[in-house]
């Protein structure tokens, strides 16, 4: 469609050159123009005489002057001729060069396939075809009119975060909390937005948000991480390191674990789970290990095909001096891995080694 329009415009432009060439050539208008001017000049002189701007004697002289000019210009007139070859060359040049120049230059400068993007149409597009910017703008407009729509705020907040508009995200979470009250998740997200808006500094306001989140849910990892980060930033490195390591113990494979590990390394602590546990006071350490073992047991209950896991679990129970559980685990492992002779053999070897075999 756009090319049809371009073609039409180009055609009009070329015709503007061709039309006068095609039309029957006319006589020069110059002579007539000179005569007309002479008549105007003479009538002007007459009017000046009437107004007394010029004396009658001078007027006579002026009329002669004008007539002399008319004659002089008639002498100057040059001969005129139309050459058919010249017309053909011009016509051909117009037909070829005008489209070539305009299309060539447009090809270099233009974006023929890029449609118009009037704002209203973008905002009215069906949701599936709407671009993110337009959709967001639509929700923003809705929220500007209905600032108490908590659901709307809750939808835009993470979008803002993703777009790097942390300040707007914080504003959105603030509204959600104002309307629906704080949950750990909201308060923590609010604190995170504030932190991002402050270029990674956990501001006192952000810290208050994280602490509010921990009040609702003491285990909330995100809130705990940021409180630790706040400690780190305010100089309390020991308590920060402690908190990071606890987080790593609880969730060595959590999506946020690499970030925490990075913090720990930065603070000079060891970040492997074993190292973290080693750094703990004895009582805590055992508790931590028990937690880890319980986690492993739970995982194997779900997915019993992991031989390495079973071996580790049996070994752990033995180390914790829970021989009954070690035996039970051994039995469970054999049941889970039944049919895998090699695995069963390894389990038996371990039982012999630990002295719990039957």
């Amino acid at each position: 469609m756009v090319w049809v329009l371009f073609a039409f415009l180009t055609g009009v432009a070329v015709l503007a050159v061709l039309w006068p060439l095609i039309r029957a050539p006319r006589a020069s208008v110059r002579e007539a123009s000179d005569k007309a001017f002479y008549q105007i000049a003479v009538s002007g002189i007459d009017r000046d005489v009437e107004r007394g701007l010029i004396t009658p004697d001078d007027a006579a002289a002026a009329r002669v002057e004008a007539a002399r000019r008319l004659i002089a210009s008639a002498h100057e007139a040059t001969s005129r001729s139309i050459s058919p070859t010249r017309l053909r060359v011009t016509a051909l040049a117009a037909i070829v060069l005008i489209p070539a120049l305009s299309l060539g230059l447009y090809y270099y400068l233009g974006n023929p396939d890029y449609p118009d993007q009037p704002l209203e149409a973008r905002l009215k597009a069906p949701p599936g075809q709407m671009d993110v910017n337009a959709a967001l703008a639509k929700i923003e407009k809705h929220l500007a009119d209905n600032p108490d729509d908590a659901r709307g705020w809750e939808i835009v907040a993470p979008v803002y975060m993703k777009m790097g508009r942390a300040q707007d995200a914080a504003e959105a979470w603030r509204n959600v909390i104002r309307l629906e009250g704080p949950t750990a998740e909201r308060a923590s997200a609010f604190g995170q937005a504030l932190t991002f808006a402050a270029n990674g500094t956990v501001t006192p306001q952000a810290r208050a948000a994280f602490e509010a989140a921990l009040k609702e849910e003491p285990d909330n990892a995100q809130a705990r991480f940021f409180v630790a980060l706040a400690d780190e930033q305010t100089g309390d490195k020991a308590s920060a390191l402690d908190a990071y390591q606890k987080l790593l113990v609880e969730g060595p494979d959590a999506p946020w674990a690499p970030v925490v590990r990075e913090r720990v390394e930065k603070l000079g602590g060891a970040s492997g789970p074993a190292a973290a546990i080693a750094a703990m006071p004895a009582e805590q350490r055992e508790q931590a290990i028990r937690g880890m073992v319980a986690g492993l047991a739970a995982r194997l209950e779900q997915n019993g095909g992991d031989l390495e896991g079973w071996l580790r679990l049996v070994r752990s129970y033995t180390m914790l001096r829970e021989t009954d559980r070690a035996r039970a685990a051994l039995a469970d492992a054999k049941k889970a891995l039944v049919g895998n002779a090699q695995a069963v053999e390894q389990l038996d070897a371990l039982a012999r080694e630990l002295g719990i075999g039957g």
Partner: protein
Amino acid sequence: MIVEAGHYALVLALALAVAQAVVPLWGLRRGDPALMATAAPTAIAQFALVAISFIALSWAHVASDFSLTNVIENSHSAKPLIYKISGVWGNHEGSMLLWVLILVVFGAMVAAFSRAMPDDLRAATLAVQAWISGAFILFILMTSNPFARVFPAPIEGRDLNPVLQDIGLAIHPPLLYFGYVGFSITFSFAAGALICGRIDAAWARFVRPWTLLAWMFLTLGIAMGSYWAYYTLGWGGFWFWDPVENASLMPWLAGTALLHSATVMEKRDALKVWTIFLAILAFSLSLLGTFLVRSGVLTSVHSFASDPQRGVFILMILVFFIGGSLALFAWRAPELKPGGIFAPVSREGSLVLNNLLLTASCATVFVGTLYPLALEAFTAEKISVGAPFFNLTFGPVFLPILLLMPAAQLLAWKRGDLLGAAQRLTFAAAAGFVVALVLGAIHGGPVLSIVGVMIAAYLVVGSFVEVFGRIFTRAISVSTAWSRAVGLPRSAWGAAFAHAGVGVSLFGLAATGWGVEEVLSLRAGDVVKAGPYEVAVMSTQTLPGPNYRATVARTLVRSNGAVVATLDPARRFYPTRQMTTTEAGIVTLGLGQIYVSLSGENADGSLDGRVYWKPFVSLIWMGALIMAFGGLLSLSDRRLRIGVARRARGVAAQPAE
């Protein structure tokens, strides 16, 4: 599709400009009327294409199509419609497109309305016009393309510079551009005449309506710009001898000189070389103004985002057209036959004096504008040439113009009677004295103001001495007087009004010496005395606007206890651009104005403000309106219209060669 169609139309207009620039000149060289005849239709088609392009860009601005960089950078969806439209030319790219649009409008008008012209002159003129429009379209496409697109399109724009979000933007640039660019057509006429090698009295008549048109628009454009600066800058100034203003004043002075010298050329077939030179000069000064404003040499609200590449390009255009036309001039000027000799005391003698003085005043402005820039470029030393320089140089040169203006109108062609003219002006001089005495007695005040209004009153009355002399000699009856008044050539009326307009403006300028100014901290409840009026601040409050928040001081103007006006001077804060603008509260009372503006907010809630009483100040701009009205009257003169219809018939009757 609309956007891309506009883009393509602009590119196509360039291709067509090339055709229009080349084919008619070839025809002229070969004496081929068919090739020369291509000039007019291509000029009209080129106009249509640029118009499509301009409409497409305007549509993009109105529809907030944020896929265009130009729209993103200069618009906002919440901006009121009028500023979405005026914002099209409220930026560098769009204003250049408006510039080109007006270039091709003039080309198309010459093509459509100048059928009476000799076809060789018409072809050459339109070809030169195409060279100019082609150069500027190329400039736009290469360095300042308003159709540049962005993907993906953002959802909101960065808004227009708040200073430009004003009705002034809708009026001032189009008027000024019509003036600036209008001189392009007189330039093209001059270059066309030089190319054809035929420069005569007829040329002067053909070029006259275009000069008048350009001059009128330039007068209005400068006046509107001055009034805009007056009400928007917040301290009541209206002319700053700022380089950007001077850039518009110089073509005006050259154009005014051209208007007068062309009359001599038309009537006496003399001053031909000079008139052609002025036609070249007027447009060269327009181009110079464009270069100064757009190259980044100057920083001002007019320069928008400047870019060295653009400066170099405009400089190339400048050098090409000024150098080219002067070379053409040097080549052809010696061939011109000198016209008749004339006496010093005569209409033409006085017009020569007018030209000398106008060009001298133009030269002082030129020096005052460019000298500091040149000095800074070569020595890095910054000097500021301001009002004192111009008052000392421009003033003395312009004063004789003012004094001699009415006398020149009374001199006859060929041989004038100076004594007679002086006698007929005694009444005007007496009127000047009376006005000066009365106003001096009322206002006292600076001598300059008293002298100024004296000259102004003399000028206003003196301008009409000639026409009233014609009307009322030997006639008492009203009907005779009326029929004589109607019978007088419109150009005589036009000259009278234009000259009187100068006097009216001068009156307003002189009266600024009687103004009253109070700078103070305003609080609700404060009352300030300003001249014969009392200004009372009633309340201050913050109000939301479409894309700004305004701090408004509701202010009453009282005279002897009675409220005569309510003003709302305000400061507006535009969050998108983080900028604040000042909206002065102005009311015209009689011919003077009360002017209240807020300059800042204090922590304690009070507002810093200025209150002025400016007697007769509105006359400054009314004078410009009267001047333009004079131009319009002159434009409607019979002799500029005559012959078109008659000649068209004459041509049709002739057999084809």
